[in-house]
């Protein structure tokens, strides 16, 4: 589904975030992306989502080189991907329901459709009560779960989650991981960057380990591998 060919990303301020990364992600995979702070996990994710373009190399999605996508094609690509941003990126002037609905609205879904899907998806992340709140009135963990709900609402073919459990307590994290597991079983590819070594160790999925922008390890059913 996704291929990286010798991808490097050097940001404008000369920071080398990714160096010569080559990897292949197959449809239906569940993949953990681990590595120390600043290793380049978020950068790798942004390249798939076309939030950034590589400085060198190619990123392919379903056989198409997304580096060369027009603005319209980029929009279409993003509508196929459910994204959990590390920094949430909720629309501050929209309620929880409106924020989640927006992911459906851009696909042109009917209003009837939206009205049904929104409460259902919120219930899945345990936030049915907060449907009409504004993001600023939610706790950190609640905001994070809104972002997760927004990512899964339009049944994307790929979910990319950038540290989706950073603000969640272990119990709620467990719930979310179960949800992801179920979604993955129905055929959706999931890429998840995380620092939660306990989750990685427990779930035994493919683990890609980044360090200083380089792939340091890539194992099926791997573990987090603490340095200490």
């Amino acid at each position, binding site marked *: 589904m996704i291929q990286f060919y010798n991808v490097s990303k050097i940001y404008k301020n000369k920071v080398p975030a990714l160096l010569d990364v080559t990897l292949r992600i197959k449809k239906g995979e569940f993949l953990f992306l681990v590595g120390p702070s600043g290793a380049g996990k978020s950068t790798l994710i942004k390249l798939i989502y076309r939030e950034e373009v590589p400085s060198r190399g190619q990123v392919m999605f379903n056989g198409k080189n997304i580096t060369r996508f027009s603005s319209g094609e980029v929009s279409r690509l993003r509508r196929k991907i459910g994204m959990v941003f590390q920094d949430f990126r909720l629309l501050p002037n929209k309620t929880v329901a409106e924020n989640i609905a927006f992911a459906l*609205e851009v696909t*042109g879904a009917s209003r009837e459709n939206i009205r049904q899907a929104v409460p259902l998806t919120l219930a899945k992340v345990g936030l049915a009560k907060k449907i009409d709140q504004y993001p600023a009135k939610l706790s950190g963990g609640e905001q994070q779960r809104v972002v997760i709900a927004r990512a899964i609402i339009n049944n994307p073919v790929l979910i990319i989650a950038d540290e989706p459990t950073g603000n969640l307590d272990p119990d709620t994290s467990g719930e979310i991981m179960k949800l992801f597991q179920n979604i993955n079983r129905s055929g959706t590819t999931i890429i998840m960057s995380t620092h939660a070594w306990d989750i990685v160790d427990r779930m035994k999925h493919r683990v890609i380990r980044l360090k200083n922008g380089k792939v340091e390890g890539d194992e099926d059913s791997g573990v987090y591998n603490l340095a200490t």
Partner: protein
Amino acid sequence: MKIAGCTTLLLNTMFYACREAAISMVRNFWMNIVVVFVIIVSLVILGGAILVVLNADYFASSLESDVEISVFLKPDLDQNTVLEIGERIKDTPGLLEVEYISKERALEQMKASFGERAGILKNLEQNPLPDAYRIKVKDVNQIAALAQSFEKFPGVDKVRYGQGLLEQLLLVTYWVRLLSMALVIALGLAAVFLIAATIRMSVLTRQNEIGIMKLMGATNWYIRVPFFIEGVMLGLIGAITAVAVVSWGYMELLQRLEVAVPFINLVPETAVLTSVLVVLLGLGVLIGATGSLISIHRFLRV
């Protein structure tokens, strides 16, 4: 099936765009008040300038229509020669009206214009005034040339027209027109610039939101249309208010001036106001559209 889907998508999108524009306008209420205020000021000044130009033209044309050439004939010409000269004058192209004023009529007119002091003329031994033709011309700018040609006619003593005054008045109207035109253009551009700056501000304050929307897969048009609608609406609201202000102000002015200074003649309202109304409304929408398009084009690139 596919076309129906597209229509639904389009309808949904338009519904969304109008809702977004409305929400944005309510949310940025105070900011929009400022924008609309600026548009109102611009358009009111514009409307005022148009009215000044129209009135200056009206005034100028009323002056111009009063301007005549007087051709004074030599004394003691016989009646035939006088008529002949009259025919020759009437044959000249570019004239509006030619009137014969005998010396008797000229004296009566003079007495009438002297009013109370007419007594001074009572004791005249003989009429010192000459026979004359009074001529109105079509184009005021031709007046000097025509006067010169009449001067060469045999039997003509002197030719007079309001030389100094007319030329000066023509210059004044020329300057009024020029200044107003400059003002109108400058203000129109200023208003466009202000709308552009405002929409840009509105884009900037929502930059974060726009970025997020793009990341959610919203297309450029999906994001642009609400701003466009917002700009047009702001222009329209400003224009409608400006039209109201200008109409009310001009009608009020007309009424007051009629009572207070009846000797000043303004263009009567109905004719003028409709044209100003149409111009301002059109300009308001144009300003809004142009301004938002400029900002959208410059600041909403992918």
